């Protein structure tokens, strides 16, 4: 028998179906072959992994169907095994795995659906934070707007896609009938995912509004953010966009760079 470390390494390699030493002589048969005994653990490994991903990516699961989803996730398990005792992290690299799989195929929108689902997962467990009090924003004198910076709440994610992923996502919720035909060329999507008071909300944004939030998320000041939004949409209206930010409860804090105190 090998030392404990080697024993564990060979068992894990066996369960991941990798070339390894024959470990069956280390296991007592007791009426059931060591291979059958190890199969119970391999089965647990697969089922636990697949079940977790199916819960985290229900729309991807529904789009590709049970059999193909199992095939995909087993291949994902081999390249991206769990790296934590907390199984909730395994889905993080799933969108990029799907991107590598489906870059130029009929499923080329699937990685973006997975990104959207992972954004939902992240928002659902993000730290609680109070949305910005609109009065605080109204209290900022106009002459200070140049140095104003706005940060987003931690339970918010932004994502854009050349595909109409929100419509695909909505058409594949448990309560939706799967009969709608959606053209992949219909329109790009600019989305905000946001958890507010325990509920997850998905909003489709105008490109200029999306750019504004992306600029805030990147730490740009209001002046630069506004310029970026106007560059992508000359009709962009800052007042309307900020009102919608308040409605969506997406903003967290006001700061000034350089710092200053509000009178």
């Amino acid at each position, binding site marked *: *028998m090998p*030392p*404990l*470390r080697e*024993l*564990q*390494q060979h*068992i*894990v390699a066996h*369960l*991941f179906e990798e070339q390894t030493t024959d470990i069956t*002589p*280390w*296991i*007592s048969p*007791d*009426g*059931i*072959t*060591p291979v*059958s*005994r*190890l199969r*119970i*653990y391999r089965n*647990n*490994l697969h089922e*636990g*992994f697949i079940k977790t991903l199916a819960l985290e990516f229900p729309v991807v699961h529904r789009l590709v169907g049970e059999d193909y989803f199992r095939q995909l996730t087993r291949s994902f398990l081999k390249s991206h*095994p*769990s*790296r*934590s*005792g*907390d*199984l*909730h992290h395994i889905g993080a690299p799933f969108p990029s795995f799907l991107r590598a799989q489906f870059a130029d195929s009929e499923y080329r929108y699937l990685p973006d659906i997975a990104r959207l689902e992972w954004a939902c997962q992240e928002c*659902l*467990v*993000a*730290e*609680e934070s109070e949305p910005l009090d609109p009065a605080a924003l109204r209290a900022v004198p106009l002459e200070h707007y140049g140095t104003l910076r706005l940060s987003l709440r*931690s*339970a918010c994610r932004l994502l854009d896609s050349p595909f109409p992923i929100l419509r695909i996502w909505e058409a594949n919720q448990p309560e939706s009938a799967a009969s709608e035909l959606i053209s992949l060329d219909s329109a790009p999507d600019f989305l905000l995912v946001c*958890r507010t008071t*325990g509920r997850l909300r998905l909003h489709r944004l105008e490109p200029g509004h999306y750019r504004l939030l992306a600029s805030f998320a990147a730490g740009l000041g209001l002046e630069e953010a506004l310029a970026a939004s106007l560059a992508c949409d000359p009709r962009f209206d800052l007042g309307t966009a900020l009102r919608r930010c308040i409605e969506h409860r997406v903003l967290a804090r006001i700061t000034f760079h350089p710092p200053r105190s509000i009178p």
Partner: protein
Amino acid sequence: MSATAAALTPDLSPRSGERSAPRESLRAGIGLRARHHEEILVRLPAIGWLEVHSENYFARGGAQRRQLENLRAHYDVSLHGVGLSLGSTDPLNAEHLREVSRLLRDFEPMLVSEHLSWSSVDGRYLNDLLPLPYTEEALQHVAARVSAVQEALGVQILIENISSYLRYQCTEVPEWEFLAALAKQCGCAILLDVNNIYVNATNHGFDPHEYLHGIPRPLVREIHLAGHTLTRIDGREMRIDTHSTHVADEVWALYASALRRFGPVPTLIEWDADIPELDTLCSEAAKADLIAESCRAAAA
């Protein structure tokens, strides 16, 4: 009821209002699962306490965590880890340990437990509980790990016996001897899973009562009960610890034997797959209470 009688009667009602200091309850508890959060908060059933899988509450926010904070105002909570991989030969996962430590600070659990198992090596996790070989090498290794965890968390932890579907040729002692030696060496307590003892006894062919008698009385600070299923592998029966059904009659009988040996021990009903209505879990807990009551009466 006179003041004296009230003082002598254990308070078995659900707690309300502010948290009191953690205490062990004699009434059986249930494993808390997300689908029951809201119903428990609304109904506040008369159960002893709630046990949570620590890893389900590592997230910084969200509905699940907030509901546990609310439930904590009414019930004692125990933290039951499934992912620390105590028996692994990798370095102890410091990040995981920090998360458990944070939960200890936030929820002031009455008990903290983990498993006598390993689930990872070279940073690759199986997220399952694999048995250790019961050798001197493994004993020294796990004892050092449990000591390190207790030092990091600042509390005594309980180590639980697992269900296993294989045994290693190199195993030197029975599991109960290994578990008792581990507790003696590092000062941990034992969470005795009576269902796991029964499952292993039938799968591996030993007398479950011998297991109970191999565990020194004062070490057992919690008992787990759960349901298992029966399957056939290579033409032989194998019991699988699925936590998906009622506690088996044979396991209830073994539970009574355990209580006769260990005295009253906080008992928990686990049900993790095909999760039933809350009432079903509460009736299983009530059944455990009845058995505990008759054992207490017989002992008196």
